[in-house]
């Protein structure tokens, strides 16, 4: 019984951590229209995992390195005049395809591909939990430290320059944070659904927030509710956990909008 308790507790703690770290970052992803950029980073993580297994290095490190490389490639191709959605479309899907192909060479090792694509929160071990919370603490620390300059650079790069802030440097902080969240979230919701966990709570929070800080805080609460509630639902309905968490977040988003429409309707009457 105590074993059962602890794996569920570990899953809850992992879900909470990722949801909280994803909230402020998700807000920036929404404000700066970086959803596809997030997808590219997340899809690249499958390649990172395959390479980490092939060279037997830490999976966290593998994902982090490949995701950062992906971000650097996106930035350099973007500067060469390709349209951003083309660059991201090429890179995101190529990284995913290469990751899947490299993974297929590793048949000797037991590779639970589904687990990496859709998450396997119930398999989070003690070491995973430590890594996840270290990553969460790092991301939250970075966000706390760079919040004002990042927000200024998001509003206008010229306003940032005029205040002595280098917007490209701030973008780098954001990219590193994104890679880090992808690396810790892959175990929880999987590579294909990480961006959902970034964007859906932030988009839902937009309805209630009057300041950027409120939006991040509300997004964290919505993310945490989705993670814990989704975990419970998945357990009782015997559904895959990662997708269930995202489904719950999506339902909260839909309810918020229906609620908003009803409120607007009442105001009209």
């Amino acid at each position, binding site marked *: 019984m105590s074993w059962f308790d602890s794996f569920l507790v570990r899953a809850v703690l992992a879900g909470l951590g990722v949801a909280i770290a994803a909230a402020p970052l998700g807000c920036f992803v*929404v*404000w700066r*229209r970086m959803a596809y950029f997030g997808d590219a980073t997340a899809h690249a993580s499958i390649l990172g995992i395959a390479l980490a297994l092939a060279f037997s290095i830490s999976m966290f490190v593998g994902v982090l390195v490949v995701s950062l490389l992906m971000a650097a490639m996106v930035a350099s191709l973007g500067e060469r005049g390709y349209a951003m959605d083309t660059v991201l479309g090429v890179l995101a899907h190529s990284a995913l395809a290469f990751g899947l192909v490299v993974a297929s060479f590793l048949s000797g090792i037991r590779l639970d591909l589904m687990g990496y694509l859709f998450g396997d929160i119930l398999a989070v071990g003690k070491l995973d939990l430590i890594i996840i919370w270290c990553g969460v603490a790092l991301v939250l620390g970075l966000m706390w430290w760079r919040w*004002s*300059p990042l*927000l*200024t650079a*998001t*509003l*206008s*790069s*010229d*306003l*940032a*320059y*005029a*205040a*002595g*802030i280098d917007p490209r440097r701030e973008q780098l902080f954001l990219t590193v944070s994104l890679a880090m969240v992808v690396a810790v979230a892959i175990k929880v919701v999987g590579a294909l659904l990480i961006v959902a966990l970034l964007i859906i709570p932030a*988009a839902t929070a*937009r309805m209630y*927030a*009057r*300041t*950027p*800080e*409120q*939006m991040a805080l509300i997004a964290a609460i919505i993310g945490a509710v989705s993670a814990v509630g989704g975990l419970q639902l998945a357990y009782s309905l015997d559904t895959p956990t990662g997708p269930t968490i995202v489904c719950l977040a999506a339902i909260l988003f839909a309810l918020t909008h229906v609620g908003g429409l009803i409120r607007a309707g009442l105001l009209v009457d």
Partner: protein
Amino acid sequence: MMNLIDIGSLSVRFGGHAVLENVSMHIAPGEIITIVGPNGSGKTTLLRTIIGAVKFSEGNISKREGLRFGYVPQRLHVDSALPITVRRFLSLPHYSSDSAISDSLINAGVGDMGDRQMTGLSAGQFQRVLLARALLGNPDLLILDEATQGLDQPGSAAFYRQIELVRHRLGCAVLMVSHELHVVMAASDRVICLNGHICCHGAPAQVAEAPEYQALFGSGTQGALALYQHEHTHSHHTDHTA
């Protein structure tokens, strides 16, 4: 008194193409300088170089030590996904006290806008909030890049009167770029006519009569200058904050 900014033989190139060539100018404390010039003449590039957003290839820009400047960009789009009140916007990137924010909003002529959402402001209100933000921290120099784009004529005339009022109150120098020759010229101490290089400069009336200026804008602008003076006497009652 020492100049706020001295610019010597400044050149800026984008990919081999010279946008600014051999531009020298200075800004003295308290004066209003307007930069005029046709599209693509490097006006915005010059301002962006001064604030540090563009790297220059030759020349030098020396700023007086401890120079504080406020910058009002050409236009700014706040994404509707980003909720932010005027008050919070004015507290970025550095914290500003409530009283400092209220003072600068009053100075910019939008004293009661502090709790409004940035996305809910009209174009005129938005520009005034940008002005208020630039006024925080008591700048020695206010830099405005076509700050009246998107405003109608009475709106921009009212905005420029606000600038004059602010200059009078705070004693700061003003460097601005504008398309609206007739509105701007009469309010300036000095006008610099730019077309990649400095064509001519001097007092507004002098510049308006300079052959280099007339070659760029036609002699008709002299009439426009008179038009402004005419308009000025009649537009005092046009309050255009909304």
